[in-house]
């Protein structure tokens, strides 16, 4: 390493070019939260236009149709790739994986630092597209060509080029990250940390990296061709030049469905980590959950055409893809049943992380169940491209990124910063978010079922949507309050970082390894010697022990029970 990790460090080495996985996690966390503000602002503008069509949005002005298309595109891109991925994949993986498996740092610390700075570069490239001539890309976050392949259709050239560049840089960054997480996981586990003693959060973060890893290649290939179409004048996607527009959808969704799991699995991992701690019970069906995750991953690679049911691909492909898609409900049913079973006969404490975890369970369930509508090809004939789809994926992404993400942030906050957050503010934040998230997106299901199409800039143009005028305004108001509801978090986050009461090493009395390290963990995490693991991660309330939990690092002789035998 270039700098002495244990001596006093200069500002630049400590905060900017740090190779410490915990500092990089914090960098990702902050960057993701800042991007979330940008994403929230775009949501505000869109909701204003939909709730109060053709009036000036305070703080911006009139949202014209061209601006609306740009906002639609940027909102999707930012929220999925620049908020969800850094918060859930990068920040959590960086922080949690080494600590939970007992490593001192990532396998490749300098690559890790490089990965973060490439990510920053890609954020800059994406945001820059707002300011170049022609404006931001306006082809939807899915960027379907030919609309996105040529300037003549949208009037956007540089914005599009920057969009592709930003995505390419981001994927390069996350590929480096993914190599790090997977290699760390495979090679740096402490003695005793067998595969079936690995805590859930780490398993699911690794699952997310796997999902990302083997799906991103085809999208990069597609992006290279899209970039060439835009800058070099090739015609891969332009039928007039012999191209094939479906090719992009094919490559994009090949990545697109695993990408959903890239964002969703870490959230499930956090919640699975939190449930046993706050119900003082072992997680129910550890192995079943791990295998289900594997099955879901495998299935995620063979369902992508469900995004293309009515895209004009041969209709005979629809039924097999419909079957595989709906089959995905099976592994997730197992996981959710196991989560519910973990609560049964527990001793539940509703601290803030637990609230977020349960909130995730309650809301994500809706997202998962409504997915069955869209997995069915024939229901999709009507529902495709309506607000029903919008509501569905917000019910999957929002619980994942924000409920799951906040659960993780509150849960590990003492470990991240060495201080306690304010419990009351945390609960206010939760209830504001939970109530107004549902108030925002539940009506959107109804609006979608009523026939409102996504990505339309002005619902007053449509006769069938006249009945939804008030409902659209109500949704907008709920969305604005939802955004305002994040203020307690921002305050809590920064105030507690400096002024919160000091946290001890294991405030939640949890059994996994990260709670052995001091809060916050020093560079190198463990002091002179590495810990050794003796038992599974969730040994709570064992009847043969007086204490209500057995940490993984406590040698207790031979313990019975399947988790102990692994």
């Amino acid at each position, binding site marked *: 390493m270039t700098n002495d990790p244990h001596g006093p460090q200069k500002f630049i080495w400590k905060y900017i070019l740090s190779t410490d996985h915990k500092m990089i996690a914090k960098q990702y966390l902050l960057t993701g939260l800042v991007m979330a503000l940008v994403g929230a602002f775009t949501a505000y503008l869109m909701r204003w236009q939909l709730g109060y069509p053709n009036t000036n949005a305070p703080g911006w002005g009139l949202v014209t149709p061209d601006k609306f298309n740009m906002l639609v595109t940027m909102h999707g891109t930012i929220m999925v790739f620049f908020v969800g991925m850094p918060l859930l994949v990068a920040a959590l993986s960086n922080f949690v994986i080494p600590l939970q498996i007992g490593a001192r740092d990532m396998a490749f610390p300098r690559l890790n630092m490089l990965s973060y700075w490439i990510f920053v570069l890609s954020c800059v490239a994406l945001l820059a597209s707002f300011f170049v001539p022609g404006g931001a890309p306006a082809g939807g976050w899915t960027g379907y060509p030919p609309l996105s392949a040529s300037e003549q259709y949208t009037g956007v050239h540089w914005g599009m080029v920057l969009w592709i560049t930003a995505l390419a840089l981001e994927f390069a960054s996350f590929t480096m990250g993914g190599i790090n997480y997977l290699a760390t996981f495979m090679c740096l586990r402490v003695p005793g940390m067998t595969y079936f003693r690995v805590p859930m959060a780490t398993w699911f973060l690794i699952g997310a990296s796997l999902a990302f890893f083997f799906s*991103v290649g085809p999208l990069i290939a597609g992006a290279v*061709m899209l970039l060439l179409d835009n800058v070099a004048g090739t015609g891969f996607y332009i039928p007039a030049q012999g191209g094939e527009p479906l090719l992009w959808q094919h490559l994009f969704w*090949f990545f697109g469905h695993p990408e959903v799991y890239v964002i969703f699995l870490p959230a499930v991992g956090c919640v699975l980590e939190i449930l046993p701690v706050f119900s003082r019970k072992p997680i129910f069906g550890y192995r079943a959950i791990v295998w289900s995750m594997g099955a879901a991953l495998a299935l995620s690679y063979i369902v992508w055409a469900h995004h293309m049911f009515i895209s004009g691909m041969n209709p005979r492909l629809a039924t097999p893809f419909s079957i595989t898609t709906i089959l995905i409900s099976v592994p997730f049913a197992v996981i959710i049943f196991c989560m519910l079973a973990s609560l049964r006969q527990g001793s539940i404490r509703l601290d803030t992380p637990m609230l977020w975890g349960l909130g995730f369970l309650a809301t994500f369930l809706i997202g998962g169940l409504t997915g069955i509508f869209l997995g069915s090809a024939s229901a999709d004939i009507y529902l495709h491209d309506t607000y029903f789809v919008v509501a569905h994926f917000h019910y999957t992404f929002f619980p994942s990124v924000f409920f799951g993400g906040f659960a993780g942030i509150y849960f590990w906050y003492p470990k991240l910063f060495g201080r306690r957050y304010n419990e009351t503010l945390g609960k206010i934040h939760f209830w504001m978010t939970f109530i107004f998230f549902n108030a925002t997106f539940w009506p959107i299901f109804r609006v979608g079922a009523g026939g409102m199409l996504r990505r339309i800039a002005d619902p007053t143009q449509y006769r069938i949507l006249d009945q939804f005028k008030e409902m659209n305004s109500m949704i907008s108001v709920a969305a604005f309050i939802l955004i305002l509801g994040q203020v307690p978090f921002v305050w809590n986050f920064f105030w507690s970082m400096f002024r919160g009461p000091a946290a001890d090493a294991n405030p939640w009395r949890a059994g996994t390894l990260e709670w052995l390290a001091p809060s916050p963990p020093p560079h190198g995490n463990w002091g002179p010697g590495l810990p050794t693991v003796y038992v599974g991660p969730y040994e709570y309330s064992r009847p043969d022990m007086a204490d209500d939990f057995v940490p993984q690092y406590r040698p207790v002789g031979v313990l019975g029970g399947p988790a102990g035998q692994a």
Partner: protein
Amino acid sequence: MTAAPADSIASDRPAPLVSKVGMALFIGTEAMFFAGLISAYLVFRVGNPNWPPAGQPRLPVESTAFNTLILLLSAAFCHRAVSTLRAGLARSSAYWLGLTAVFGLFFLVLQGREWIRLVQFGLTLTSSVYGGLFYTLIGVHGLHVLAGTALVLYVLKRSVEGRYSAAYPLGVELARMYWNFVVALWPGLYFLVYLL
């Protein structure tokens, strides 16, 4: 695998297994990237009964076959570089590495010459999807050969500086992994693009 290095922070040399796993994972994503490109190629190749399209030149099958041979030879040299190093012959290892790089560069030069001729015959990036695919797919592979050659040259430099030994052949081994991947791709691409 459970035997973690005692302290990865204090160690200046990356642990061999971790680095190889990292390289293997990287090659995995690269393979998916090429799978995506090949998938795109298949859409057009299978989708068009007339291939190459009318008015577009045929590809130089024979000279590229020769070039394939060159690339395969370079992979064999690369293997020699590792096996001699493992046998403790660091100098001869450097010699084989040099030969690998030279053959890699030779492959690139020959490819470039063919490209110039093809452009003269009217096959350009924008002349048809055929041209676009050809230059994208083969060009991307060419970039990988270039990167591989750069990696081999870098390892060669370090080898000459005496940084590798039978006990620590990691850098050369990593270079070989990557070079093997790049070379192994080529016959597949050659078959798909030139012969099929």
